[in-house]
């Protein structure tokens, strides 16, 4: 239970991207619709995972199934274009799905779908060969405000109570908004992370904070390596994605799952 398991072909890291695709995601962000910025960042992070999964066998590169990824979109419904988890070697062939923003935001529904995915998958973890699989990571991208359905807080707590031998399920929130932090970020490198509710403004931001897991100590180095170089212990897995660069950096941190990103040239 210490988040040290590595992502390997036999013990892949499971990552669920839960993406808010409500109408507000069509609003512009640095000249592009927010959803386009998300899609681009997601494409980069999938490329990053491919990089971490590529080995050379003889003189032939080969992608090993070290990551299993699910990509869910939600508004008033949930869209699961892959039908659950797909391994990174398969994802390399299909690419990232595109979503059309529309409708209202039912965040509870989105996390319900996450729980169902975990229900299917977690019972099988115990039978995985040692070393144990890395704890699954749920990466939620949103522009924050849900306007339909119940608060997902209790549901997310239940999700976080599920565990593999590596540790409880981790929930990360990436907020595509520049109004959540009381002190705006001056640079990615100097940002210390979010450690208390007092650093946030607005009830939705506080709710996201409560949903977010604390960054495991073993992931801290990796997150610092990928750009948030001043992030402090005790910070939550809660990152701003208010501009394309921030969003990309926030998403790349998902590669901390399984520890494989420690040795890479991709940056």
């Amino acid at each position, binding site marked *: 239970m210490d988040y*040290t*398991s*590595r992502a*390997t*072909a*036999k*013990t892949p890291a499971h990552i669920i991207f839960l993406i808010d695709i409500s109408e507000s995601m069509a609003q512009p962000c640095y000249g592009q619709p927010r959803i386009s910025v998300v899609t681009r960042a997601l494409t980069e992070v999938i*490329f990053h995972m*491919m*990089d*971490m999964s*590529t*080995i*050379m*066998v*003889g*003189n*032939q*590169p*080969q*992608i*090993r199934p070290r990551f299993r990824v699910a990509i869910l979109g939600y508004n008033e419904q949930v869209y699961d274009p892959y039908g659950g988890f797909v391994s990174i070697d398969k994802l*390399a*062939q299909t690419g990232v799905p595109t979503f059309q923003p529309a409708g209202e935001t039912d965040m509870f529904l989105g996390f319900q779908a996450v729980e169902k995915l975990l229900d299917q998958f977690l019972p099988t973890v115990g039978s995985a*060969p*040692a*070393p144990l699989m890395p704890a699954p990571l749920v990466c939620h991208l949103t522009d924050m405000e849900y306007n339909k359905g119940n608060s997902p807080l209790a549901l997310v707590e239940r999700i976080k109570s599920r565990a593999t031998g590596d540790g409880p399920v981790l929930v990360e929130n990436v907020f595509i908004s520049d109004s959540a932090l009381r002190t705006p970020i001056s640079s990615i490198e100097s940002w210390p992370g979010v450690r208390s509710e007092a650093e946030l403004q607005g009830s939705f931001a506080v709710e996201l904070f409560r949903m977010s897991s604390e960054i495991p100590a073993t992931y801290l*180095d990796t997150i610092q*390596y990928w750009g948030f170089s001043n992030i402090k212990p005790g910070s939550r897995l809660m990152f701003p994605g208010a501009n394309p660069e921030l969003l990309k950096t926030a998403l790349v941190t998902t590669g901390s799952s399984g520890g*494989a*990103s*420690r*040795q*890479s*040239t*991709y940056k």
Partner: protein
Amino acid sequence: MALGRSARAVYFHRKSADAQETGAKNEDAIAWQVNPSGEIISFTVCDGVGGSYLGYIASNYLAAMLVGALNGWAEDPPADTLTAPTLRDYLDSWKDEGRIWVEKQQISFNANPALVEVVKNRERHGSHTVFFCGYVDCRAGGASLFAWMGNVHGQVFGKDGQGLLDTSTMADDRVRWTTKHGCLGTPNLKYIPTDMIGRVLVFSDGLEKIAEQLTGIGDAAEDAALVRSLAGQVFSDDASLFSIWPSPGVTSAEGATQLPIDESLPPDNPEQPLELNIRPGEGQEATDASDLSALQDLPVWEQNGPTKIWRRIKSIWPPYS
């Protein structure tokens, strides 16, 4: 000439389960060399960066270069004491040859454009490795040298078991040696009087999970037993270990019977841990170098790879010719 010293070493070298399954190369490289009089052992453990371009090339090449150079520096020290900046100059000067070895590799691509992009991206950055190396000089009044770059696991323990190196300098993932740029960052370097040293331990990421066990070992025999127990285990990353006990306090006879140099180690069981009597018996005459000759003739095996003979350090390079 009375040496008044002895040393014993244990190594372990095994591919990750994934590499064993696919036939990918071991990206760790370990190397050692004992000088002709048996008083100095040079060693290195290089951990090729998995996400770099053909990380095994950087690790194997640098291991060979470092061990050869370390032995030379120990026996015939440079006019000026080696410092971190001068070591960096040496390391930088080796990058061109390293790059030539990388360029000799012909990569064949399948049709997946994303995969092509991954490999091309890696190629642009070159082959990378981190390392921990050094020499242990067992001559009377000798000082030993240790050097490292990047995120490595190395420590020199004093007689009281206390670590003598600042391991906070071994945590930076950005620091490494590359065939493209030479050093990214500056190597760390430290001299320690050999009299102070109880044990030298270095291991790669594959053994990270048992780090506490490895560092808590009390003597060479216990060390050998633990390493033997690793033989049947599965590792999520390539796993390498090199452990040196400069003063094991065993007699020559004990050394010969308890920790023989096993030259019959079969090539098809290459990663069985092997213990080396570097210099069994205190006060042995330097002219009695039979054990050392045997040591220097030890073959080093890599699973699914050709036998490599350690007689001349250069002969291990290239590793897959």
